[in-house]
């Protein structure tokens, strides 16, 4: 039972355009959502997060949107750069003693072409 899903295994965009990566979840108890970026042969690195009490969080070129009613979040990268090419993982955590546990989606590989 996969509680966090990224249905697009890959995405290709032109440099300078917007990249939109999507993530769906099933557990309404999740209260914190995160995006991680991963390069080959490296561990995932934290990119941006959002609390369930917000619907938007912005950090430079990266913005995460949360739609709780649809149990959907998305990561927007504007403008996209070739260095953004990586695998992006969506993750979620729940309240209480499950809070330390992150549940990850299977990742979306973003390719930004010059």
């Amino acid at each position, binding site marked *: 039972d*996969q509680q966090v899903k990224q249905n697009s295994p890959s995405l290709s965009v032109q440099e300078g355009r917007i990249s939109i990566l999507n993530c769906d979840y099933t557990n309404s108890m999740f209260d*914190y959502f*995160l995006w*991680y970026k991963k390069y080959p*042969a*490296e*561990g*995932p*690195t*934290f990119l941006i*997060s959002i609390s369930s009490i917000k619907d938007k969080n912005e950090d430079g070129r990266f913005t995460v949107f949360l739609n709780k009613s649809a149990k959907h979040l998305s990561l927007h990268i504007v403008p996209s750069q070739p260095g953004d090419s990586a*695998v992006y*993982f969506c*993750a979620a*955590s729940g309240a*209480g*003693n499950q*809070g*330390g*546990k*992150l*549940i*990850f*989606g*299977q*990742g979306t590989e973003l390719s930004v072409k010059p």
Partner: protein
Amino acid sequence: DTAVSQTPKYLVTQMGNDKSIKCEQNLGHDTMYWYKQDSKKFLKIMFSYNNKELIINETVPNRFSPKSPDKAHLNLHINSLELGDSAVYFCASSQLWGAGGYTFGSGTRLTVV
């Protein structure tokens, strides 16, 4: 200066062997984790330790045994390795129990032949 370091980076071993993967963090974090990335690329939690105490133990075969000698180290020992154990294993740490924002190690690619 690496924040979360895992050794070895690659490990090839035969079925039935026992092996260990070591993890150390120099961030002063209280909580450490082991995650497994399987062939379908999902990252799944295996164990979590908070201040050397086991907090999360997912449905992992008991051939896998974590050991935390102090809060800066979390090692993973695997007995009687099986082909299905082949995966990339990631260690991670975080500052606060319940908070997001893990720092991951670079992973250990385990191949069982």
